[in-house]
C-alpha cells in the first residue's frame, strides 16, 4: 500500500511563544532542503505541522530522510479520502491491511479528530462506525483503546479526511541554525562528533576545528576527521572544517616543557587557537566532547587549568555522560565505526605515560613562559586549511 502524505509534527517548537514563527520557518526551510532532489514531493506548512504530498514517492524513504531533521518530533504517513463515511471506513481498513502486511497487528484503535466542527457526526461515533467496519472486514483483530498495536488516526478536515497509520520516531530538538554558531574541537575520537551532534540537535550551527600534525599524524587521520565532519553535515547542514597545522606547536611543547605538563599546555594552545578561529568565524562558544573524569585532561583540575586561557564559553554537552552511553549515541548516528579507525591523532603524540591529572594554573603559566605562545598561535592560525564539507565537490564522488 502507498501512502499519499507525510505529516510532520513539531516538538519543542510548538511550545515556543513569540519566536515560534522564526523556528518553524527555519524548520520548513530545512525540510525543503532535504527534499530538494525530489521535485514531485510538495511541502506545505499549515499552522502547527508540516504536510508533505508524496505524489508517488516512497513514504518510507522520504520519512527516513526527514527523521534526522532536527525540530521534527514525529512523522505519520497518511492517505486522504473525501468526507464520505464509506470512503473513510474503506481508508481505515486499507491502512490497517497495509500495516498488517508489514508487521503483526492484533489490536487497533481508531482516534478521530474533527478539525471541521461542522461535520455532522461526532468524533466518538465516527470511531465506532469506522472501527466496526474494520472489524467486520478482518479476522483475528480486536480493538484495544489502551495499548493498541496500531492507532489509526482519522482527521476530519474542511473538505477531506486524513487517515494515518504508520509512524516514525524522529530526532526532535530544534532546527539547525536557530541557536547561533559553535566551534567544535573535533579530534577523530568517539566523543567529539557526538558532542557536535547534540549541539546541532539544540539548533547550533557547528563549525569544526581539527589539529593535524604531519608527518606524525597521517593523511588517513585527516581523512577520518573529514569523514566525521561529513556525518555531521548529514545532520546539520553545511559544516566548515578548519584543519590547523599543529606540528610546530607540538614540537615546541615537547622540547621546552616538563613532560608532566605537556598535555595540559597542549590543550591550552588548542583553546587559544580555537578562540582566534571562533572570533574570525563569528562563533560565540567553543565546544568539546569532554566527559568528566574520562581521561587525565578531563578532570576538574585539568579543565580548570585549561579553560583559563579563553573567555569564551566552552560547551561540554557530554560532561555528565558515561562512556557507554556516548558510544551508544555514536553508533546510532553512525560515527562510531569511523571514530574507531586506528590512526593516531595529535592528542596522543609525545605524551608522557603519566600525564598530570591534577595540574594547576600557576604551574601552567610559569611553564608557558618558555614558549613563544603568540608566534605559535599566529603561525597555526595562518596555516589553517578550511574545507567546506557541504559544498566541496569531491573528485571521488564524481567517479561513483
Amino acid at each position, binding site marked *: 500500500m502507498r501512502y499519499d502524505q507525510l505529516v510532520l509534527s513539531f516538538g519543542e517548537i510548538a511550545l515556543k511563544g513569540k519566536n515560534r514563527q522564526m523556528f518553524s520557518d527555519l524548520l520548513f526551510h530545512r525540510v525543503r532542503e532535504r527534499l530538494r532532489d525530489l521535485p514531485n514531493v510538495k511541502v506545505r506548512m499549515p499552522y502547527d505541522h508540516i504536510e508533505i504530498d508524496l505524489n508517488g514517492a516512497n513514504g518510507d524513504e522520504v520519512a527516513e530522510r526527514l527523521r534526522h531533521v532536527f525540530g521534527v518530533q514525529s512523522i505519520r504517513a497518511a492517505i486522504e479520502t473525501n468526507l464520505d463515511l464509506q470512503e473513510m471506513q474503506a481508508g481505515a481498513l486499507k491502512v490497517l491491511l497495509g500495516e498488517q502486511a508489514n508487521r503483526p497487528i492484533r489490536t487497533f484503535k481508531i482516534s478521530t479528530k474533527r478539525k471541521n466542527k461542522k461535520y455532522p457526526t461526532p468524533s466518538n461515533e465516527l470511531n465506532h462506525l469506522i472501527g466496526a467496519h474494520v472489524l467486520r472486514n478482518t479476522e483475528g483483530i480486536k480493538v484495544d483503546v489502551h495499548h493498541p498495536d496500531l492507532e489509526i488516526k482519522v482527521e476530519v478536515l474542511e473538505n477531506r479526511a486524513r487517515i494515518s497509520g504508520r509512524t516514525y520516531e524522529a530526532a526532535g530538538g530544534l532546527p539547525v541554525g536557530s541557536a547561533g554558531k559553535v566551534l567544535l574541537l573535533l579530534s577523530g575520537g568517539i566523543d567529539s562528533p557526538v558532542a557536535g551532534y547534540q549541539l546541532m540537535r539544540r539548533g547550533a550551527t557547528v563549525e569544526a576545528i581539527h589539529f593535524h600534525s604531519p608527518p606524525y599524524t*597521517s*593523511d*588517513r587521520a585527516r*581523512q577520518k576527521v573529514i*569523514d566525521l565532519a561529513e556525518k555531521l553535515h548529514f545532520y546539520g547542514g553545511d559544516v566548515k572544517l578548519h584543519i590547523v597545522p599543529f606540528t610546530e606547536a607540538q614540537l615546541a611543547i615537547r622540547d621546552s616543557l616538563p613532560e608532566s605538563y605537556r598535555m595540559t599546555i597542549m590543550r591550552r594552545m588548542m583553546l587559544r587557537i580555537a578562540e582566534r578561529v571562533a572570533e574570525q568565524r563569528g562563533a560565540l562558544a567553543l565546544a568539546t566532547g569532554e566527559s568528566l573524569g574520562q581521561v587525565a585532561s578531563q578532570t576538574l583540575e585539568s579543565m580548570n587549568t585549561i579553560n583559563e586561557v579563553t573567555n569564551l564559553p566552552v560547551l561540554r554537552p557530554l560532561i555528565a555522560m558515561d562512556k557507554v552511553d556516548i558510544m551508544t549515541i555514536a553508533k546510532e548516528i553512525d560515527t562510531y*565505526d569511523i571514530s574507531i579507525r586506528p590512526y593516531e591523532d595529535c592528542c596522543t603524540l609525545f605524551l608522557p605515560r603519566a600525564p598530570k591529572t591534577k595540574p594547576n594554573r600557576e604551574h601552567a603559566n610559569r611553564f608557558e613562559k618558555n614558549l613563544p605562545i603568540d608566534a605559535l598561535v599566529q603561525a597555526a592560525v595562518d596555516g589553517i586549511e578550511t574545507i567546506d564539507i557541504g559544498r566541496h565537490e569531491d573528485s*571521488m*564522488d564524481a*567517479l*561513483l
Partner: protein
Amino acid sequence: MIYLDNSATTKPYPEVLDTYKTVAEEYFANPSSLHKLGGRAEALLNKCRAQAARLLNVKEQEIIFTSGGTEGNNTAIKGVAFGYRQRGKHMITTKVEHPASRAAFEQLEALGYDVTYLDVDREGRISVDDVKRALRDDTILVSVIHVNNELGTIQPVEEIGNLLKERPKTLFHVDHVQGFTKVPLDFYEAGIDLCTISGHKIHGPRGTGILFIREGVQLSPLLAGGGQEHGLRSGTENLPAIAAFVRAMRMTMERARTGIAALDKLSKRIRQALEELPGVTVNTPKQGAAPHILNATVHGLRAEVFIHALEEEGIYISTKSACSSKESEASAVLLACGIPEEAARQAVRISLSFENTPEEIERFLQTFARKLSELKNAME
C-alpha cells in the same frame, strides 16, 4: 544489434568503463599501503562501500566485495558450513539453483554434509511448507535463489525468511544475482542473513559482486591471507572494478525506479506475441516471475538452430543459462519443473535489461515469427 541475453551478462555502461579507467590510472596504489597514495585508494574504497551500503539499505560493515556470484554463493554456503559445523551439518536448498550454489552443495555432500534439495512445482517454485517440513534441529543453512536464472520464477523468500526468523540457529542465504534491481528485496525485512549479488548483471564490470553478511554472522573465510574485507575475503582489493561496479549499482537502481514497470510491459508484450505463435509455449509463469526473463519452448526446433537463425539478424537470445548451455543435456531447472525432456531441449531464454526499447522488442518479435515460419517450412 538487439541484445536480449541480459541474464547471461549485460553491456557495461560507458560511464562505468570511464570510472574503471580513471581509477586504474589514478588510484592504482594498494589501499593497504601506508603512504598518501594508499590512503587515497583506501578512502575511495570506503566511499564505495558506503555508497553500496546506502543503496542496499544495510550497514557498511555488512558488505564484502567479491569477484561475483560464484564467489558470493560459495563463500556464503561453504562459509556457513565450515563456520557452523559444530552446530550441525544439515542444509536445505532447492533443485533449481544456479550451478554456483548446486555444485558447492555437492562438494559439501562429499565432505559428509547432509543436503536436502527441495522439489519445485510446475512453475519452478518451492513451497514454504516444504521448507518447514525439511527443517531439523541440526539445520544450519537454507539457501534459495531469489529469481531463477532460466525461468525467472520468484521464490517466496520473504515467507521463508519470516519462517526462519523464529529459528536463529538456521541461517538464510539468498542468491539474488538475477533479481537484483529487477525484483526489489529488503534484506532486513526478509530476514536474510547472507545475500549474493553480482556486478556484471547490472551493467558493471565482470569480476565484481557483493556478499551481504548480516552483523553477527560468523563465516569461515574461503580466501585466507592479508585480512582484507573484514578478514572475510583476503586479496588486494580490485578497486577499479569495485568503483565501476558501485557506479553501475547507482545508475541501474536509479533506472529501476521507472524501469521495472517498463520491463514488465515489454515482457507482457513478448509473452502475448509468443503465445499467439503456433508451436510456441511460454514456460515462465504468468504470475510471480521477474519482469526481465522469458523462457519459451519452440516445439519441433532445436533451440540452438533457432538461436543461430536469430543471430544472423543481429538478435541475441540464449538457450538455458549460459553457465550450463555448453553441456548437451536438457536444462535441469526445466526438468525439475516437470517439463518433458524434448520440450526442455527446445527452450530458449529471452532476457531484458532497462536498456531495451519497445521498438527493439517489436523488431525482435517480427523477426522471431518470420524465422520460425521459415525454419518450419524448410523442415517440411
